[in-house]
């Protein structure tokens, strides 16, 4: 008798607890709470948060908490992984994404491609594979490298602006020739005039990073070179095609004196002012930088124009220059998280495309006229955008090697970046440095990551 009473009592208590739990949710069904972790500028933060709000509105019962992490992203994400408190969906630094996928920390999205047809219609290079039929995410957006220029500087020099179609891209010599005309010291002299003072340059002709892989990968591929051979086990940076590309870059600084050397543009550490500021202040007349600059260009009314990169044999540019977005495994809300993943970079809902930060990953946005117009026909996209970006990306984009090479984090930190810094310092010719670095990189190479067609 006593025992039965006790059971009744505990049953009542359990009911009470359940009722209280329901009451906590305001009577609605229990909500899934997702976390979305991302980096970016203050402007990107606003836009991503807006996207997340939209997702929550369209999906009653799912709440999304933005985890904006502008600095030290890899450190913080690593810490979350170590502590077992990963977000549901988030940006993942490219090299790290492959490691986490291989460790089983990311959801294999391959089975979901049938459920979400828009995911299956991406550009082939967008997918990130950690094995056959194992896809751990996509590059967040498609991004390519472009030649941005200051319209005012071009007009002052009285030269034709950099071409906006790949077919008429400048050769390297044409780039150098025009860069001379665009480089001016404090006394108004150009580098090919006597009395030019390289220590007091008012306006540099061009800036094209030597240490940032995406900036030169298009040149390298266009000249018939590559980072590694077909097996991904032998580094090709000491091949003549590669040496020529890097020697040309080094020459821009020390031979032609049309490009700033290390530290010359820096404001704080490695933080060079944004391309929009460099062009607006005419500190530099032409800058090789990613498409994502468009947002800041428009925001700061930089008076910019967009050209395609100078060409070697082929007019190539690096594409898919972005981090990964992935769904984290073991968070308990996989379905909802995949739903958010499919939503987060869909141009139908996200205005980061029309605003100019991102380029879509779905093929149709490069092929179908109405779809192209949906993200490019607006005030934020200048008239040359169609040929200089949409067509250029579709026909001449080569996927960034940094999404493809295994073990690149260690290769970069230990050998590649130091070697590129040495080229940038101009103490030795590029060929000498690359001849020493390439075999060491070869020793660390572990092949290319898997890729496959859908």
């Amino acid at each position, binding site marked *: 008798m006593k025992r039965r009473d006790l059971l009744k009592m505990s049953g009542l208590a359990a009911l009470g607890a359940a009722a209280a739990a329901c009451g906590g949710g305001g009577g609605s069904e229990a909500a899934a709470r997702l976390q979305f972790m991302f980096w970016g500028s203050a402007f990107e933060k606003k836009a991503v948060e807006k996207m997340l709000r939209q997702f929550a509105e369209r999906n009653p019962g799912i709440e999304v908490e933005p985890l904006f992490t502008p600095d030290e992203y890899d450190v913080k994400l690593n810490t979350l992984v170590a502590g077992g408190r990963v977000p549901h969906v988030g940006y993942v630094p490219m090299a*790290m994404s492959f490691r986490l996928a291989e*460790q089983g920390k990311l959801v294999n999205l391959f089975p979901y491609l049938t459920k979400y047809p828009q995911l299956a219609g991406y550009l082939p290079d967008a997918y990130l594979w950690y094995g056959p039929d194992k896809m751990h995410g996509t590059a967040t957006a498609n991004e390519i490298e472009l030649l941005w220029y200051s319209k005012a500087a071009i007009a002052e020099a009285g030269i034709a602006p950099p071409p906006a179609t790949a077919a008429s891209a400048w050769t390297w010599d044409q780039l150098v020739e025009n860069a001379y005309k665009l480089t001016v010291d404090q006394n108004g002299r150009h580098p090919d005039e006597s009395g030019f003072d390289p220590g007091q340059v008012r306006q540099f002709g061009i800036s094209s990073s030597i240490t940032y892989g995406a900036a030169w990968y298009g040149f390298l591929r266009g000249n018939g070179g590559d980072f590694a051979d077909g097996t991904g086990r032998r580094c090709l940076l000491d091949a003549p095609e590669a040496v020529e590309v890097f020697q040309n870059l080094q020459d821009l600084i020390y031979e032609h004196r049309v490009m700033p050397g*290390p*530290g010359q543009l820096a404001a*704080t550490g490695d933080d060079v002012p944004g391309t929009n500021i460099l062009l607006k202040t005419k500190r530099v007349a032409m800058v090789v930088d990613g498409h994502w600059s468009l947002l800041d260009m428009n925001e700061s009314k930089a008076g910019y124009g967009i050209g395609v990169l100078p060409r070697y044999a082929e007019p190539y540019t690096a594409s898919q220059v972005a981090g990964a977005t992935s769904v984290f495994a073991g968070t308990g809300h996989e379905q909802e998280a995949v739903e958010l993943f499919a939503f987060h970079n869909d141009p139908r809902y996200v205005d980061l495309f029309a605003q100019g930060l991102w380029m879509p990953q779905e093929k149709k946005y490069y092929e179908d006229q109405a779809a192209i117009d949906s993200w490019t026909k607006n005030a934020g996209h200048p008239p040359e955008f169609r040929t200089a970006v949409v067509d250029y990306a579709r026909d001449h984009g080569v996927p960034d090697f940094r999404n493809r090479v295994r073990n690149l984090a*260690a290769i970069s*930190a230990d050998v590649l970046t130091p*070697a590129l*810094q040495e080229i940038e*310092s101009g103490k030795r010719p590029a060929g000498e440095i690359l001849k020493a670095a390439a075999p060491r990189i070869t020793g660390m190479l572990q092949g290319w990551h898997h890729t496959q067609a859908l």
Partner: protein
Amino acid sequence: MRRLETRWGWLMALPAILGFAIFTVGPMLASFAFSLTDWQIGGSPSFTGLDNYAELAGDELFWKSLSVTTYYTLGAVPLTLIVSFAVAMLLNQRARGLAIWRTIFYLPTLVPAIANVVLWIWIFNPDFGLLNSLLREAGLPTSQWVHSERLAVPSLIVMSTWGFGNTMVIFLAGLQGVPRHLYEAVSIDGGGPWRRFWHVTLPMMTPTIFYNLVVGVVGTFQVFNQAYVMTEGGPNHATLFYVYYLFRKAFTESEMGYASALAWVLFMIIMVVTFLLFRNARRWVYYEMAGAR
């Protein structure tokens, strides 16, 4: 009564003891255990014995970071000692506005570490930085400072002396403790300022110098901020300080086992260096109450 006091004593000390045990000893032991494993964040550790330590011996960047850090220590410690000692001597004079001078010389120490680094990034800027502007005004050749492989560490050594305030204050306290009668004795024997310095000040200050030397060496071996904020270890590994390399291994490449091994090797190095300094100290450090130490 005595027992009660003992109990209270332990109780009062408990927060500090617990803090030390949980946040210092615990992680240290854990890191030693990790150093014997191959552990990437996200994976599970597998025991590999001393493999990490063996791998260190063949790791070019380990040796590079060790030599860069030693270079920095050998430059920064003596320079800071000399500068702070000299300024402490000056501030130990009887002069007008002494308090203001002391404040001014101490002030840089109060600048937060990162703000300090950002400030120096500007000072070192090759184009419009303070140093190059001054050199240009004087008609002297300018320099790339931290952007040059050769000058990066010397630049950082110069920068390190800027925060000499704490060392200076300790020297100042030491100088004020030098017994006046010893100076008087030298004066009576006809000794000038140089003799007063050489035969009284310096010997009496050796314990303070020794203290600052040890603290300086231990501190500079752990230099990190400059590489982290300013140079990212570059150019071409010129400023790949040991702790920065460790940090990169741990949090960028997420090689926790290897990074733990690096940490323990640094701990051993600092222990050995400190031990050697103490052993050597008997030869040159003078304690007034020699028997009492």
